[in-house]
């Protein structure tokens, strides 16, 4: 990594850290300071869990091939937070929620989330380690998808939350769920999986929305502050793209004099 990239990386991390910490303090004092735009999938999730509880059928959560220790570690943590919010609601059901993973590194995290969900409801006695299922992925994750299509019927799943790392094999899982009249909320960090989720899921999440589960379903100040920090970084990226574009357009119209004028304003040339 060259020195410019190092400095940029440190600046971005520091900015995100400062915004996260400072905004969280403001939101603790004034909880309505930052209004969240409605996201249909997050509005629907509590209802999906409620339907599962009423039908005495399990909710199914799946991380796909999301893992810890690899490139998508942070996606795994964000998905786990979203799952915790759903599992906490589903923990009161007689039919325990199911969590499926295909990467073994996600198993300890999954157990932790399930235990935390039951403990938060003071129902730790109902926790069963068999609520977490590991299905090995195979070379193209299709074996995992095939296992899930069978599980959806065998375990009489009510609704599915498929948020993590999925490729086109998500189509098989979603298709199996739809044929059994099960609801599907889906999102993936892979573009192919994201496209399938948009087309086939009842409730798709797009892009960074899948990282916002904690803020929308839990509403803690630290999670909401994280959204503010993302917004700040997003605006910086927009400015970083717009300013060079404006300079290039200005130069094309004014025959190169625009950038010269800016350089003189900033004290150069």
């Amino acid at each position, binding site marked *: 990594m060259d020195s410019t990239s190092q400095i940029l990386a440190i600046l971005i991390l520091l900015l*995100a850290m400062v915004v996260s910490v400072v905004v969280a303090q403001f939101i603790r004092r004034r909880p309505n300071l930052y209004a969240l735009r409605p996201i249909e999938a997050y509005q629907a999730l509590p209802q999906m869990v409620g339907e599962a509880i009423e039908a005495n059928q399990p909710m199914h959560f799946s991380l796909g091939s999301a893992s810890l220790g690899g490139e998508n570690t942070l996606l795994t943590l964000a998905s786990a937070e979203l799952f915790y919010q759903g599992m906490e609601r589903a923990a009161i059901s007689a039919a325990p929620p199911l969590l499926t993973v295909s990467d073994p590194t996600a198993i300890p995290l999954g157990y932790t989330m399930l235990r935390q969900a039951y403990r938060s409801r003071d129902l730790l006695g109902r926790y069963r380690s068999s609520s977490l299922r590991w299905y090995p992925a195979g070379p193209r994750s299709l074996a995992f998808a095939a296992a899930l299509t069978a599980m959806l019927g065998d375990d009489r799943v009510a609704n599915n939350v498929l948020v993590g790392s999925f490729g086109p094999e998500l189509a098989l899982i979603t298709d199996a769920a739809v044929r059994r009249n099960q609801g599907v909320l889906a999102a993936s960090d892979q573009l192919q999986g994201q496209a399938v989720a948009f087309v086939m899921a009842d409730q798709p999440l797009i892009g960074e929305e899948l*990282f916002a589960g904690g803020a929308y379903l839990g509403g803690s100040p630290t999670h909401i502050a994280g959204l503010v920090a*993302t917004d700040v970084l997003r605006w910086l990226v927009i400015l970083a793209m717009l300013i060079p574009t404006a300079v290039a357009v200005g130069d094309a119209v004014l025959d190169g004099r625009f950038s010269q004028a800016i350089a003189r304003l900033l004290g150069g040339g």
Partner: protein
Amino acid sequence: MRRLNAAAAAAVAIGFGLFTLVGLLSGPESGLFYALTTVLLQVAAVTAAASILIGILNLLSVHWTRLKDRRKGWGYSLLLLLSTLLVLALVALERLGVVGGSPTPSSILFESVQVSIESALAGVVFFALVYGAYRMMRRRVSGAGILFTVVLLALLLGSLPLPGLGLLASVRDWLAAVPVSAGARGILLGIALATVVTGVRVLIGQDRSYRE
């Protein structure tokens, strides 16, 4: 006591996280610091490999419970348990030199069973996708749905090797190069920014995985 344990675990995780971050940012020039970071990453990789054992135990215990309780689909669980034991025994015999050959029986089993089945499933994915697109239009006719269908048709028709479809091929190329590429980059940028913020949350100890 539980809180104390959680706090200690969080402190260790945050400490090592910051140490690794600084080590990676400073690069190989930092000498010992970078070497220690590399060792930490190797330890993480070994830990990840060990988690496969947890996975196998989970798989066996889930299917054994299903078989014992005679739950729906217990026959498949029996098949899975027998297959697992068979493959473990086969690999053990290969390692002991009792069974041999090139390619090894376990790799033949893998190639002829798992790869074939996965290839067949890959073919099914296409039909599931087409049905999904049809279902989307049947479920809700929205602006996004119409745009999706029009673009899909343009891309599919533009890919046909038929004469007189030159204009559609140009439209397909433009769609793939400009709006599709821009949209994909937008989604990836959004994910990248949210990932940075999630990383910061982990580094400052705000993540739920630290709590007990």
